[in-house]
């Protein structure tokens, strides 16, 4: 019984302590919010001032009032202005971006970014790297470049994006020696970042298409697709026989965009050797790049019992040319389920 009594008392005391902590925490947040609101207003003023300052008139410095100078000694205010500048810089560009960069440097806030890189905690390192990229602090490129191949994927992706922000397309050279796998999500982030940059020539894709890191090959295929690198056609075709099925899939997708007069036949040649997912991708690709010469071959595959494939084949044949659709209507199975219903849907979609 004694142990029960002790346990009961401990539980209730702990619960009471937690409740008290919660109440105090909420009151603390509420109080801080009030103080922060005043400081944020000052920070907003400073940021606005920086954006509209003509630096030629001020010897490259943003004038800071004595009141603000005093506030800058306050750690909380410095943290608020730090976050405010980062947040504002994320959504602007051009002269305003440069102005905020100057303000950031003037207040020595770049040292705060660097300090984060020395942290033991991965999320603080990643934050520091991210903020160096956002602020465009090119002088710290050597400090963050080694992180592009970090084993912690959150750090490595931030470093990769920051390197692109700071060096443009040239920054993609981190792919040369990348051993970590780049996830689909990371690839989306990298492509988005590249989309924000002015397009420039870049080299290395031919090497990345032959990388031992399969995710690098996949990413290189996406780059080839996005930037229409027709000169790499043969390298893309080589990827059709890669051991990794995802690489082969991406090669098929790429050939749907980067193709020549032989591509349709090359894909058809691969069809029978491929797994289902790749076969489906080939049929979809042929809708774009195929011509009347492949229609009869595709019709042979229509006997499949897999309805998804059957429908995709029918779609491709119908959309290659008017001849394709008419040919489908003449087939014996065209009057029977499921092909008859499929053809009705295809006809309806063609009208739309």
């Amino acid at each position, binding site marked *: 019984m004694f142990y*029960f009594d002790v346990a009961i008392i401990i539980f209730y005391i702990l619960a009471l302590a937690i409740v008290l902590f919660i*109440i105090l925490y*909420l009151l603390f947040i509420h109080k801080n919010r009030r103080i922060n609101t005043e400081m944020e207003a000052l920070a907003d003023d400073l940021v606005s001032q920086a954006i509209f300052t003509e630096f030629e008139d001020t010897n490259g410095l943003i004038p800071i009032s004595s009141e603000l100078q005093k506030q800058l000694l306050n750690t909380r205010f410095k943290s608020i202005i730090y976050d405010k500048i980062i947040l504002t810089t994320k959504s602007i560009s051009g002269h305003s971006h440069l102005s905020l960069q100057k303000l950031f440097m003037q207040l020595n806030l770049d040292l705060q970014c660097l300090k984060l890189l020395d942290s033991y905690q991965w999320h603080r390192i990643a934050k520091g790297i991210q903020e160096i990229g956002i602020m465009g602090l090119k002088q710290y490129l050597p400090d963050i470049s080694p992180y592009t191949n970090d084993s912690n994927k959150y750090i490595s992706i931030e470093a990769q994006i920051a390197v692109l922000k700071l060096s443009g397309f040239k920054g993609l050279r981190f792919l040369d020696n990348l051993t970590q796998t780049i996830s689909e999500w990371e690839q989306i982030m990298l*492509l988005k970042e590249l989309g924000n940059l002015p397009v420039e020539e870049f080299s290395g894709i031919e090497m990345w298409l032959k990388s031992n890191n399969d995710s690098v090959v996949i990413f290189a295929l996406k780059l080839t697709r996005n930037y229409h690198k027709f000169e790499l056609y043969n390298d893309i075709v080589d990827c059709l026989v890669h051991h990794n099925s995802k690489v082969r899939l991406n090669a098929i997708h790429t050939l749907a965009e980067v193709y020549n007069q032989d591509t349709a036949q090359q894909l058809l040649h691969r069809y029978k050797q491929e797994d289902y997912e790749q076969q489906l991708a080939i049929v979809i690709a042929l809708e774009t790049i195929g011509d009347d010469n492949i229609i009869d071959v595709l019709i042979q595959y229509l006997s499949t019992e897999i*309805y998804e494939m059957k429908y995709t084949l029918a779609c491709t044949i119908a959309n290659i040319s008017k001849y394709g659709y008419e040919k489908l209507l003449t087939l014996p199975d065209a009057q029977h389920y499921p092909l008859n*219903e499929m053809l009705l849907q295809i006809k309806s979609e063609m009208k739309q």
Partner: protein
Amino acid sequence: MSWQSFLLDFFTYGILSYSILLLSSYVFIGLYSIGEVRHYLKKNSFTDYRILAGSTQAPTISILAPAYNEGANIIENVRSLLSIHYNNLEVIIINDGSKDDSLEKLIAAYDLFKDDFFVNPQIKTKDVRGVYKSRNAVYRKLIVVDKVNGGKADALNVGINIAKNNYIVCIDVDCILEQDALLKLAKPFIENTEERVIATGGVIRIANSCVVENGRLLKVNLPEQFLPRVQTLEYIRAFLLGRMAWSRLNGLLLISGAFGAFDRDIVIKCGGYDHTTVGEDMELVVRMRRYMEERNQPYKVSFIPDPLCWTEAPATFKILGRQRNRWARGTIETLRFHRIMFFNPKYGLLGMLSYPYWFFFEFLAPLVEFVGMVGFIIFMLFGLVDWLFFVNLLFFVFSFGFLYSVFAILMEVITYNQYKKPKDILNLVLTAFLEPFIFHPFVVWSAVKGNIDLLQKKNDWGEMTRQGFSKKTP
């Protein structure tokens, strides 16, 4: 020692041992969830989900929303789904043979016409009467399917047959989604490089007393009525602690039927939702996991602690009872269908930990509690009860339950802090104090009734009448 004393001791120490095991598992879950929540929040602080919204490379998603007699709010609900900002999306509303004017309202509001559509019968379902699309290009993402009534599982299976995208998001049509819900739910599928993520779920929050306008949540309020409020507390415990801990272990067996995302390819290979069970949401996840285990393919069922979806909780004991009864039956049916996994090392963590946990502590707990109460009454009538021991045990359990609930409230406050006022927190704490006396016995009794109904082969859903959300006052 008389046989009565022996029986009493056996009974008492049996219940005590079970309670200690149960409470220990709660302690483990509570503490283990902390790491996962912290990791997620830290990771989230870098993530710009907007990248996914506009990307052509983002995962392709089909939202499946079955609707039965939802005429009152369906237009608004569909509008809120169509307003989700996501590139590669289609919204499929499945009218499950509604007896009201749900379909007619949709046709009128969205300028729908019956289109020629081949429904791939990958999963066997009841007949589809028609597939509708909009003449208006603004609603090009919308597909409405009219089918013969067959229940929620059957309706979802029709949606799966019609969906063309890689991932399906199954939702209740009257749920309110956060603006970035889809983005957050989609990300786990594409960020894991070691395992195939086959399903993800998020936190469901209680929308009672919240202010909703045009299908959007404008203001979060703590439910005013006791029953929805105690369910708020229960959901915080279950989602923020329980599911996060299981997700960290990769042993999660359940993704809420109100809102979850699934790999369509795996769902089809597993045969879709089982329409013979009322717990089709849990049963599908267990079957998908079993499918992957049997093929030795590395996989994960992921869970996100962000509040993604808001739903109306039962506000009366009658409706609550039906819901809990159904949940109990669903759990039992799922455990029964997949009993081969019980302590079977072939199924790894699923068979050796997840399944046994659900069996002993989710299925059996209400029964053990009920048997304990009945046993207590019998021993009391025979004058055999050690009152001191009984009272101590009762207070022990109550005080632990209260502490656990308060801990869950703390986790909620330091993470998402949806209820910001100290008054609301104190209200929740008071609710935690009252829960064992009002809510918990009722839920236990509903679960016991569920067991009885299952033995009597009752397999209906029961009518779940909803009151509707609070509207913004002009």
